């Protein structure tokens, strides 16, 4: 199992580096403007007071964009970080097994004495390590830039919201991984997982203003990710069990499907 993890990480070393650079750049570019926003917070807040409710929901439902917490939430944790990590997560989930199968290199692995269960576990572990590494780089960048731009939010809260974001995107990855493990094409796996991820963002966001969306929103992981509540310490942590449940369910179904299915 260890060689598969090691060589999967080796094969993805450059792409992981570029994703890390992207995350660092995204966070840095967003955070570096905080001092300018802070100085004009009052005027900027007034211009946001008249924003329509539906648009407000798409921005996280908060009316506070320019306090330290409001800025951090709206610029990093509500959408940008879940978006960039979500794309990486879905890409990993759909390709860890899917790419090996599509390019037939999976035959090299399965012709060796490694069980399908161990192969699946090794690939899932490699994906989690990559996603975890890029998330940690994002976390460190956020904490460091927050110190640089004097954004006054406790590091502990940044760690907690990053952890919730990691679980959110890991659930996207698990959905994509399940779809490729049951033999769906990479395109289908990416498409369906993207709908679950970012369609879920739209539906969960609009559910604040559209009543009939309230029930379907509960099916999507994004509904349970409330970054502002975590930063304001009002979050109901039992919501995270939804992510854990999805990840475990997808892992179990992936294993059930992959261990006996035909590899073409």
């Amino acid at each position, binding site marked *: 199992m*260890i*060689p*598969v993890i*090691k*060589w999967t990480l080796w*094969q993805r070393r450059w792409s992981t580096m570029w994703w890390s650079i992207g995350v660092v750049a995204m966070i840095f570019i967003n955070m570096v403007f905080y001092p300018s926003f802070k100085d004009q917070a009052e005027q900027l807040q007034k211009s946001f007071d008249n924003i329509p409710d539906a648009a407000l929901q798409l921005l996280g439902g908060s009316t506070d964009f320019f306090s330290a917490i409001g800025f951090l939430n709206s610029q990093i944790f509500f959408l940008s970080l879940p978006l960039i990590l979500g794309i990486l997560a879905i890409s990993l989930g759909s390709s860890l097994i899917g790419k090996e199968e599509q*390019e*037939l*290199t999976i*035959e*090299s*692995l*399965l*012709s*060796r*004495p*490694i*069980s399908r269960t161990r192969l699946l576990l090794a690939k899932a572990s490699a994906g989690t390590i990559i996603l975890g590494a890029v998330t940690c780089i994002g976390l460190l960048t956020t904490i460091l830039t927050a110190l640089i731009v004097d954004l006054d939010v406790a590091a502990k809260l940044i760690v907690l919201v990053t952890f919730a974001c990691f679980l959110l995107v890991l659930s996207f990855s698990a959905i994509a991984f399940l779809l490729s493990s049951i033999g769906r094409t990479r395109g289908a796996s990416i498409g369906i997982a993207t709908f679950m991820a970012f369609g879920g963002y739209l539906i969960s966001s609009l559910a604040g203003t559209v009543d009939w969306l309230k029930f379907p929103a509960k099916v999507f992981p994004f509904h349970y990710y409330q970054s502002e509540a975590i930063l304001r310490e009002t979050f109901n942590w039992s919501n995270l069990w939804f992510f854990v449940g999805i990840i475990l369910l997808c892992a179990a179904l992936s294993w059930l499907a992959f261990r*006996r*299915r*035909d*590899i*073409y």
Partner: protein
Amino acid sequence: MPNKDRDSGLVIKKLSKRYGKSEQLALDDLSLEVKPGEVYGFLGPNGAGKSTTIRTLMNFIGPSGGTATILGYDIVEDATTLKRHVGYLSGDFSVYEKMTGKQYLGYMSELQPLKSKGYEKKLGKRLKAEFSKPLGELSRGNRQKIGLIQALMHEPEVLILDEPTSGFDPLIQEEFYGLMKEAKQRGVVVFASSHILSEVQKMCDRVGIIREGKLIVERSIAEMASEAAQTFDITFADKIPLTELKKIKGLKVTSHNQNRVTIHIHGKLAPLFTLLSKNNITGIDTRTLDLEEVFLRFYEGKGERR
């Protein structure tokens, strides 16, 4: 790990495979055996079921019915343990394009440690393999060499090869036949599919021909040879006894001029030589025995069922 039953070799019993809801079976009650030290050639036209058989033996796809064991291990239940003893190569060997040969073989040997350290380098020298270039930059033949090395480097007791010489030049093909000969001497079970009939004739002890998922015939190469038509060019001092020649069972006159005739004969040669002994012969040439025609007869469905 000790073998369960090394002497049993490869045993396939009534193996069948149906893809999805297809009405037609891709494999239909396939049964065959290959003993240790035997090289078995598995032949058939495209889509006959050769690759399906091999992929089922490797447990890439599951059988719809029947069983198969290799060295006593069930191909499905004991798949992981079994693969400690198996070397596999597909004709369309797929690679990690960015890895070099050295890195790829390193990866594979981490998954399945080698019995003799450095054996992959010895194989590399014999096959003139390129280890330092990324696999994606190699020609098909050079990639296939790396594929062959990964199949042989852990010195397996069973070799399952799907069109193994695809892309090899004639010199490397000869080296491959040498490697198979050595494997046979070590008592390795070799099960190889091929399209190249001359290769099968050269390498295999026995052949099975599959068509539409069914094994239609199994013969030793010696048996095939006895069924093959032989070609003679005969020069007569006098007039050719064409009428008498044509009466011989299994004989066909392919061309003739005034006193030289080319004939094609299946089966017993005695009646031909009896006739020749009664005539004044000035020359007789035999052409190399060619099994291709026998193979093609079965390929095209003119051969008997097993």
